[in-house]
């Protein structure tokens, strides 16, 4: 039913129902077979965080190994090293970053932000989670069936001939692709058909625009990865020869197919992050977002332009000069919508009343790191400099600045921002901020030296290196462990809040988007009464109420509803 009239609800909406989505039903079956988007989102959150931990352990092993030239730590041989960087990349990409924000936070937040009771296809949503789990199992199986040493890109012809578990890993990635498609499809349909009255397209919070743009890429690009990986499996099992030069096939064709998905996938990773940042910037500057329509449209522009630039991964693979030039030019065009967003966020902060709460610390880190990551991308998009920088640590540093400095910071910012809503608990703000700054410093210490050594010719994916690079590698390794410490503190802050955190008010930050209108944690049906849809960035519509410990809506002359 549309509206459940509860007599206990106060007029201001600061109801405190005893029943919420966590206590609605009990037992493990109520989680395993749940169709509630909030529970699925939470299961995703636990899943992707575990994957992140696994990928992080691989990263720390890699960095420890690179602390000195030659063999450094026992057990990590040359071959083991190849497997570690492959699995680090594959786990982080397919299991963590791609589903990280859309599937975990998007699942939880999107329907509530939209004012809907659930996503359009709750069963498909649950199926998507189990596909994710299935994909993860195949990845783990690959780990035990001889590992994987192709690099996360599975480039042919090596991936055809290596005797590691390529089929298991590609099967995992294939299944994860379907998980991603189902999530994207669900979100597009939800945004189209489940908007309540009053929620027009241009009243949607920018997080929804970003997720919508992401979903378009997921639906259009992921199937191409599916067919590519399927052909790779057929190559290994049936010897079809399409990618195998020994049989007349074309390995560069594999690269085209792979990057036709995997470059747009980069925007699957970063667009939702940008959506989170738009919410954080406005809330913590206590100012309406600047340039709403530009940010919304730039999300779609990035989604569409992202499909036209895959060739910049093959500047040195022997593609024609003409296509290299065209791809280079198109690559630069992506900088425009990205810059539009960055400038609008800056303008949002300008003369705002900025609060340095934990989520905002991550948002500021994002702004700083994403800008560096984006600008160094321009060097790689230029043909002449790319020839020099291709396959060096410069590339590694660049995409870590975008993926970790961008997506991970936004992921953490989003988790801290929505944590009170998701769990109903307030975390320790002081330690939250400390962790954020340790993460920021550790991250820069890890990856900034990589720009330097990359531009001086240190190739990526090497087990050994010349003594002149030792200083940079040492700094990088120390930074990586510092980053790890920061992340563990952040995890500890969150987990501790579950045990001893204060009860969260409905709206601790004073945001104006709909998810803060329902109680924390939200009730099973999201809203005990149909929310009033207003301007999502009208922050003056909320005022701090010391009695609640949070913000409440000003009893304004409500629109007739």
């Amino acid at each position, binding site marked *: *039913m*549309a509206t459940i009239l509860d007599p206990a609800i106060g007029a201001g909406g600061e109801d405190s129902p005893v029943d919420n989505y966590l206590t609605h039903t009990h037992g493990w079956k109520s989680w395993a077979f749940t169709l509630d988007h909030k529970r699925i989102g939470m299961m995703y959150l636990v899943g992707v965080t575990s994957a992140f931990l696994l990928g992080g352990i691989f990263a720390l092993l890699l960095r420890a190994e690179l602390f000195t030239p030659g063999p450094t730590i026992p057990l990590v041989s040359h071959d083991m090293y190849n497997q570690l960087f492959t699995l680090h990349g594959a786990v982080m990409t397919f299991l963590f970053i791609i589903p990280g924000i859309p599937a975990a936070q998007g699942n939880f937040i999107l329907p509530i932000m939209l004012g*809907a*009771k*659930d996503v*359009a*296809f*709750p069963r*498909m949503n649950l199926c998507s989670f189990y596909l994710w789990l299935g994909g993860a199992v195949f990845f783990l199986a690959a780990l035990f069936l001889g590992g994987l040493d192709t690099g996360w890109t599975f480039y042919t012809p090596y991936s055809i*001939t290596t005797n590691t578990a390529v089929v298991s890993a590609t099967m995992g990635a294939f299944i994860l692709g379907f998980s991603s*498609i189902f999530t994207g*499809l*669900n979100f*597009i*349909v*939800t945004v*189209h*058909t*489940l908007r309540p009255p009053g929620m027009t397209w241009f009243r949607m919070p920018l997080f929804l625009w970003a997720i919508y743009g992401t979903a378009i890429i997921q*639906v*259009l*690009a*992921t*199937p*191409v990865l*599916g*067919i*590519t990986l*399927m*052909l790779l499996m*057929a190559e*290994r*099992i*049936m*010897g*079809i*020869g*399409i990618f*195998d*030069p*020994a*049989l*007349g*096939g*074309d390995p560069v*064709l594999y690269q085209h*197919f792979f990057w036709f998905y995997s470059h747009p996938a980069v925007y699957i990773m970063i667009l939702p992050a940008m959506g989170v940042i738009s919410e954080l910037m406005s809330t913590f500057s206590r100012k309406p977002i600047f340039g709403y329509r530009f940010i919304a449209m730039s999300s779609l522009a990035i989604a569409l332009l992202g499909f036209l630039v895959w060739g910049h991964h093959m500047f040195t693979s022997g593609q024609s000069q003409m296509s290299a030039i065209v791809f280079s030019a198109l690559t630069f065009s992506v900088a425009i919508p990205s810059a539009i967003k960055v400038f609008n966020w800056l303008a949002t902060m300008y003369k705002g009343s900025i609060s340095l709460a934990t989520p905002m610390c991550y948002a500021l880190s994002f702004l700083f790191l994403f800008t560096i990551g984006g600008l160094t991308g321009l060097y790689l998009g230029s043909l002449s400099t790319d020839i020099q920088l291709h396959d060096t640590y410069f590339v590694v540093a660049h995409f870590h600045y975008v993926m970790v400095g961008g997506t991970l910071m936004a992921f953490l910012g989003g988790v801290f921002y929505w944590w009170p809503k998701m769990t109903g608990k307030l975390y320790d703000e002081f330690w939250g901020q400390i962790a954020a700054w340790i993460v920021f410093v550790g991250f820069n210490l890890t990856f900034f030296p990589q720009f330097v050594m990359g531009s001086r010719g240190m190739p990526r994916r090497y087990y050994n290196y010349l003594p002149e690079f030792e200083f940079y590698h040492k700094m990088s390794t120390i930074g990586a462990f510092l980053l790890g410490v920061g992340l563990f503190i952040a995890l500890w802050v969150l987990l501790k809040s579950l045990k001893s955190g204060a009860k969260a008010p409905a709206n601790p930050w004073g945001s104006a988007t709909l998810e803060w209108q329902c109680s924390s944690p939200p009730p099973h049906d999201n809203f005990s009464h149909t929310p009033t849809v207003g301007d999502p960035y009208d922050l003056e519509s909320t005022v701090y109420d010391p009695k609640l410990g949070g913000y409440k809506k000003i009893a304004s002359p409500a629109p007739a509803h």
Partner: protein
Amino acid sequence: MSAVTEPATHDHGDGHHAHHPFQAHHFETMEQQYDSGKLGIWLFLITEVMFFSGLFTAYAIFRSYHPEIFVAGHHFLDKTLGAANTVVLLFSSLTMAWAVRCAQLGQRKGLILCLVLTLACAGTFMVVKYFEYSHKIHLGLVPARYFSFVPGSEHHGHEGEHGDAKHSDGHADAAGHADAHATTHDPAATPDTLDSTTAAQESALLVHDQVEKAAIEGKDELPYRIGLFFSIYYCLTGLHGIHIIAGMIAISWILRRSIRGDFGPQYFGPVDYVGLYWHLVDLIWVFLFPLLYLIQ
């Protein structure tokens, strides 16, 4: 989305009716539910098109690299069986569309009959496909690495338009041949997991030398690398076949629900969605048939 008359009139007629038993809790109206499903299935069809697009791209690229192997290869495909399958699938699209109409009109018996006919057509298609596949596999007309067809072992004519197989790209030079040759016979590179072509494999190694040699010298009419044609043939038709099987499962599910009497003028979405999927699968075959069987 496209207009849906039945649920709409249903809502106009009676504002305070009880919920339809198949209306999910998070939808306000049956119409909203139907529209969501319809948009969902169209998006899914887009992903299917993108999925097949990779293979069609591979087809286009290899046809431009090696046009001669496509022309030579297609002579081994049985046009009669292919045409018969095309007719069967087109007819199944008709019965599927009819099934949707029956569901909308609440004609339970007609719906069941149409779905059974559609299933029967799909089954016929797969049986024909089975005979085509097994015949080719028996002859050794299998994907590139295991290709072991011996010219002359079968009466099918390759008309000799390509007696002098001219290779227009860099892959086919003499060095490439030696290379390919070595790889093919490397026992380590031969997976032992192949079930369906085990018999073909056994003979493969024996005859491979002759075929390779003949091809190198250009004396045989089979162009070099013709195995790639069969790689693409099996990938395209195989993936299509998997979709037919998936469609059969979906239709069986719809059939079961039809027998239970779930569908009627107010609720026919699932029949409609499965129907759309089935039409796409047919449409893909409509492209595959000329591209593979009817070249030149």
